[in-house]
């Protein structure tokens, strides 16, 4: 079982190597002649205003709450999906009830305008 996950680890190491080798090579090969216009932040050709480090709008908050609930729901879906075929009809009904209860909460969130942008 561990060797199956080892392939994910190798993929991860490969991804790190791909990114870092490209950056190091470009750093070594590039000519280095900076001037002030060249060092400016590129933003579609417009002159940039203010800093990039700002706090984003807290309208995302309710989206995050809905995400949290369905994130936790996924934990219960995972073992159900693994044993789906051997568990039979009863487990399907159980999961149906489980999802229905959660969708009531989702419907309430929708009704209260939690998913509307302000």
């Amino acid at each position: 079982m561990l060797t199956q996950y080892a392939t994910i680890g190798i993929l991860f190491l490969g991804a790190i190597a791909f990114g870092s080798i490209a950056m190091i090579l470009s750093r070594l090969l590039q000519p280095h002649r900076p001037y002030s216009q060249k060092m400016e932040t590129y933003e579609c050709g417009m002159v940039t205003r203010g800093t990039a480090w700002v706090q984003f709008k807290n309208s995302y908050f309710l989206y995050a709450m809905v995400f949290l609930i369905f994130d936790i729901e996924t934990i219960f879906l995972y073992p159900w999906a693994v044993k789906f075929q051997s568990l039979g009809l009863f487990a399907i009904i159980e999961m149906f009830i489980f999802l229905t209860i959660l969708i009531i909460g989702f419907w309430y969130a929708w009704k209260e305008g939690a998913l509307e942008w302000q």
Partner: protein
Amino acid sequence: MDLQVIAFWIIAFVTLGSALAVVYLTNIVHSALALIMTFLGIASLYLTLHADFLAAVQVLVYAGAVSILIVFGIMLITRGEGRMCETNTFGKYKYTAFVVIAALFGVISYFIIITPWQVTNGIVAEENMGTIGEVLFNNFVIPFELAAILLTVAMIGAIVIAREVKNLK
């Protein structure tokens, strides 16, 4: 050394390194990113212990949900007069923090040392996801459905509180 030991040392190195980065980086957003890396490192430690369900829960709950909450905590609270680059400076409480952490380390180490750890001779289950599924959907039906009600109540509660705050503004 076999593959598992090598994997453990790499993962332990990455996990501890990113845990140190959480404390030492001065930009709190970078600290949050390093914290997510620590959570993922712990998830891969669970994988090396053949606890694949626990690893999935670690990724979903900690790297997913808890990190979202931490990012919102950062975004809703202004620190360092809006300069995000100097938001994780704890210079004032350095020595207090050292005493508290040293005490915590001592207590945890003491209990690890005095606990008589039992080594089982039994074989560790190769695959525990299916077993958890079978137990959850056959023996613990009512707690499983109660979890759905708990989650719905939590979501509705959060929306009611958020709406009240919006009305106050």
